[in-house]
């Protein structure tokens, strides 16, 4: 296969790139590889910048003038572990699983900048069903109803936050559940 850049030399480097959720296959020769301009997310890792600093930097830049007392972001707190938005951006770490629901939607752009995507496509996890509820069909129906309610609440939130990608995903999932999976 010829290099996609120079169309002269044999492509020796093959890789999948993700930028803003768009996946593309690349085949380039090693000479062209050394001339490539760094991709946006790539340069993040080229420099040895710790994530905390990176995240703090991004937020600080946009919020330098914001008065913390009036800043609505300052009041966002994870109900499970008590992490607040200020601490989250300062340490750059999540305090519990619920934090992802609380802070995740606020940093979607950053997630995409770091990973090139904000949606997991790898190995899926299905929790082992508990022996005593697995064969009770009645319970499963209730669970589906509950999940639909929960998803609809999330959908509403996603639309309000203009997070249309998530909204579309949630809508699909609700449809699936309504059609009996």
């Amino acid at each position: 296969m010829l290099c996609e850049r120079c169309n002269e030399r044999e492509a020796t480097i093959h890789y999948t790139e993700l930028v803003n959720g768009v996946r593309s296959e690349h085949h380039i020769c090693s000479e062209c590889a050394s001339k490539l301009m760094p991709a946006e997310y790539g340069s993040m890792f080229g420099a040895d910048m710790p994530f905390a600093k990176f995240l703090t930097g991004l937020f600080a830049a946009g919020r330098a003038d914001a008065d913390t007392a009036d800043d609505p972001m300052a009041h966002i707190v994870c109900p499970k572990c008590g992490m607040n938005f200020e601490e989250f951006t300062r340490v750059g770490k999540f305090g519990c699983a619920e934090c992802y629901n609380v802070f995740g939607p606020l940093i979607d752009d950053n997630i995409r900048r770091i990973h090139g995507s904000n949606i997991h496509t790898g190995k899926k996890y299905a929790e082992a069903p508990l022996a005593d509820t697995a064969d009770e069909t009645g319970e499963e129906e209730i669970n589906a109803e509950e999940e639909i309610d929960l998803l609809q609440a999330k959908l509403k939130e996603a639309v309000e936050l203009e997070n249309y990608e998530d909204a579309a995903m949630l809508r699909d999932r609700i449809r699936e559940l309504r059609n009996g999976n």
Partner: protein
Amino acid sequence: MARWFENNGPDSDVVISSRVRLARNIRDYNFSLKLDEKSASDMIDKTMTELSGCAEFADYTGYNFKDLNEYQKHAMEERHTISRFLMEQKYAAGLVSPEEDVSVMINEEDHIRIQSFVSGRDMKSAYHKASSADDIIGRHVPYAYHEKYGYLTTCLSSVGTGMRASYMLHLPALSGTGQLAGIMSELGRFGLKMTSVFGEGSSSPGDIYRISNQTTLGLTEQELIDNLDNIAGQIIEQERLGRQQYMKLQQVAAEDAAYRSYGVLRYARKLSLKDALVLLSEFRMGLALGMFGDNMEKGYSVYQLMIGIQPYNLQLACNSKLELTELEVARATFIRNNLPQIV
């Protein structure tokens, strides 16, 4: 039974090992940052009880930091059985397979870190081993998993697959000719990173480097591994070219360096860690280039010496605390006793 670092695997002239680490958290506990000591102990005990009862882990050795001294913990870290992060934790526990190739760490930066090693270049097997352990553990403890973000981790930099795959590479030619800095700075665009295994910053005695994926979300485990393997393959080829060039242009100097290194390793009566690593690196490259002929024990893993001469493994082997000079003497003795003979 031979441990993973006592064998050579595919492409062992350059590749020492393939490693996969999976980060997992338990749904109902706060993550490490917000986990108080009492909850941490509770999480460790419950998880250990669950996992110790698994038939699949029956031949694994369980450990708890409550029962280990500092030497034992450091020696495990030097052998890569546990991470540095875990070693520095006050409370921790885990399981290790008989060949030390699979390790489950509990109360790392994430609640559970599953790690697998395979000698040489074989990431497929390394992933398979880690993923199988993951399947078993996931059936016994409920993971923190998100429909959109995948496996949830303390750091955003591991979320999604939670997977860090890495090759440990011996790169004396690329490092000796100064080409490595350039390669390292270019890896970011492929979502990869390279670090030195021994030593800090630009100094890397032993010329051993680790290359790993930096991004974890959006691509599948297979895609992440393919990307890493393709780029690592390039580096391996460049290292081989560099070695061939060296042999072609300076054969006498190259052989002299390898044999001199062997001589010092064979006869020295005390060795600093840095000097020993530098000499072992020269020797390892000479061995890979066939300089020692067919008489040298085939498939000898020089890397086991690099691990064996680390300070805590030496002290553990001697069963006593050693001062610096004693340590250097013990190191030279260890090498003398374990270095293969030139017949």
